[in-house]
């Protein structure tokens, strides 16, 4: 009988421990049901900024529940326009199709430009043969017509063809001939706003001019994890890839930024060139606030107030992005609760 009694006691003790842990251990978890909660989703690029703001805001307002996630700009807008989130982070302006979804669900949004990012074109530290690429080069190396090219020099012919058919004053001159070295490309996948930005800023104008689909070549290593992209770029001597500026900044010892030429000479990504949009791959970062929630939920309004304060915006620099010189426009839009997309891209 004794072993049975001990075994039963063991189960009981185990169940008790588990129950105790389950009850007491949730100190750090979960969110409340009522009005005092804020749900943020969207771009993984903007997520660090919003999360830093959320953490600071939470420490001042312990009664408010906050969750921040970063599945990607597109996924974020899908949730936002379905009313599942209060604020959507975005690394590109909202698309017309997404605006239509929001309208169909009766959701109005306030678009706030909170920071600037420089899409950084990277290669490995060992690569000293490439220091500057134009948009023309990038199209020939990573665009839809480069499928199957395994070495840089494979693109020599294509780039001269592209240079002959498009306006190199707008996209920069080719830097061919390229080295005869393996072309190993690592970048974000299609779900990412960083991918969309790359296509839009680099590939789309040239692809349109050449009658091609605006997309990257499909045969490159895509990852949703920016650190994996950095490892991929650092892991090959003649690599090529692109990430947001913050990930380049955090890994400057592992990877090298390639200057980008869009007809006005080679420009390195630095806080100054990105902020002034002199760097051709600068892009604005936004938060989109659900206007109705901002009016009804004091927690959301207080959170955005804090976001746009000097203390809140410190998170932009802390997260590795470039702050705007002047936040008057965003603050005015917020103060007036101006809804809709401004379309006025810097």
């Amino acid at each position, binding site marked *: 009988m004794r*072993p*049975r009694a*001990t*075994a039963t006691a*063991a*189960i009981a003790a*185990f*169940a008790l421990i*588990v*129950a105790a*842990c*389950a*009850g007491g*251990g*949730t*100190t*750090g*978890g*979960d*969110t*409340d*049901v009522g009005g*005092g*909660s804020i*749900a943020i989703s969207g771009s*993984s690029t903007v*997520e*660090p900024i919003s*999360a*830093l703001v*959320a*953490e600071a805001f*939470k420490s001042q307002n*312990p*009664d*408010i*529940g*906050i*969750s*921040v*996630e*970063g*599945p990607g700009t597109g996924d974020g807008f899908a949730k936002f326009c379905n009313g*599942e989130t209060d604020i959507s982070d975005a690394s590109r302006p909202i698309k017309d199709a997404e605006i239509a979804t929001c309208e169909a669900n009766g959701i109005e949004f306030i678009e706030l430009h909170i920071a600037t990012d420089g899409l950084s074109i990277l290669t490995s530290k060992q690569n000293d043969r490439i220091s500057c690429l134009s948009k023309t080069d990038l199209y020939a190396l990573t665009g839809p017509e480069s499928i199957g090219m395994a070495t840089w020099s494979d693109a020599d012919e294509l780039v001269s063809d592209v240079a002959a058919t498009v306006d190199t004053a707008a996209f920069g001159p080719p830097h061919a001939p390229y080295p005869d070295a393996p072309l190993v490309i690592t970048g974000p996948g299609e779900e990412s706003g960083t991918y969309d930005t790359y296509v839009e800023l680099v590939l789309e104008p040239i692809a349109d001019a050449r009658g091609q689909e605006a997309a990257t070549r499909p045969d490159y290593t895509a990852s*949703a*994890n*920016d*650190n994996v992209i950095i490892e991929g770029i650092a892991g090959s001597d003649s690599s090529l890839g692109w990430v947001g500026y*913050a*990930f380049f900044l*955090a*890994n400057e010892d592992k990877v090298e930024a390639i200057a980008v030429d869009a007809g006005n000479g080679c420009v390195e990504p630095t806080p100054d060139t990105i902020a002034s949009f002199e760097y051709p791959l600068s892009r604005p970062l936004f938060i989109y606030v659900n206007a109705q929630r901002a009016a009804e939920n004091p927690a959301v309004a207080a959170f955005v107030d804090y976001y746009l304060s000097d203390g809140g915006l410190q998170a932009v620099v802390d*997260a*590795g992005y470039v702050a705007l010189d002047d936040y008057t426009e965003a603050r005015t839009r917020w103060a007036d609760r101006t809804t809709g997309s401004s379309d006025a891209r810097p």
Partner: protein
Amino acid sequence: MTTADGHPASRPDADIVDALRGRGLGVGALVFEGALLVALLSALSILLVLLADVVSGALPTFRTRGIGFVLSGLSLSPDTAGVLTGIAGSVTIAAIVVALAFPVGVAAALYLEEYAEEGWGTTLVDTTVRNLAGVPSIVYGLLGLAVFVPLVDRIGLGGVSHGRNVIAAGITMAVLVLPIVIITSAEAIRAVPQTIREAGFGVGATRWEVIRHHVLPSALPGILTGTVLTLARALGETAPLLVIGVATGYFAPPANVGVLERLTGPYTALPVIVFSWSRQTRPEFLETLAPAAIVVLLGVLFTLNGAAVWLRNRHDRRW
């Protein structure tokens, strides 16, 4: 190999004697033994390299943060980030798994072993359960997303997360480990000698009394061991949680909410914390904090496995 008169030939005889004494091994035998040893050592060394890598990455975190790392919640700052939220989520999932998979699994195993008539029906069920145990966990994640998340939301436990909460996660994990609980429990029950049952019936006990007082207590150590091991599996799984909407970013609950609100809100688990830290911008997260979280997770798993071994050794019966 035998001579005409039936006696063994002398050559093979000598070979056998030599082999038994360990002398005169052929080159082939030596190479084979060496290959086996190399296989063992390479498997072990891969494991050791992995452990050494993780532990050396984790050491700075434990040196500077100490127990504070285990006791702090999610944070974007490497100096204050901790795994407590993940431990809370993992333990809650484990509790739900124990509460659901254990009774259902043991009951199913008892029925299969003690009540069901042998036949094509039981063979079919047995084969299905074994196949289910081998189904990739991501498939259970999809099942959870399609069935349990809406179900939890429908029965009013959805909360602000619309069913993407720890309750749905616990149910999904319980279903994930259920086949393994059934298999290990059935094996433990089958290992109870038939003579014990016959002795019970011999003194006039009913089937229920025999099971209640003899079969189940005798099989309990084996059942417990199997259950604890399946718990370890449930704690280590990441893929199904990612599918059913575990929070991969920062979240914090309001200060004063009830248990129900906490259970129905966003949650995370230890392996998910490792996953999300590996995506952070700040290099400290990938280089020192994620390894430290792995060490905590391994610590929890080793403790559970240790408990399984202890239970088996303490209660094992030999007949």
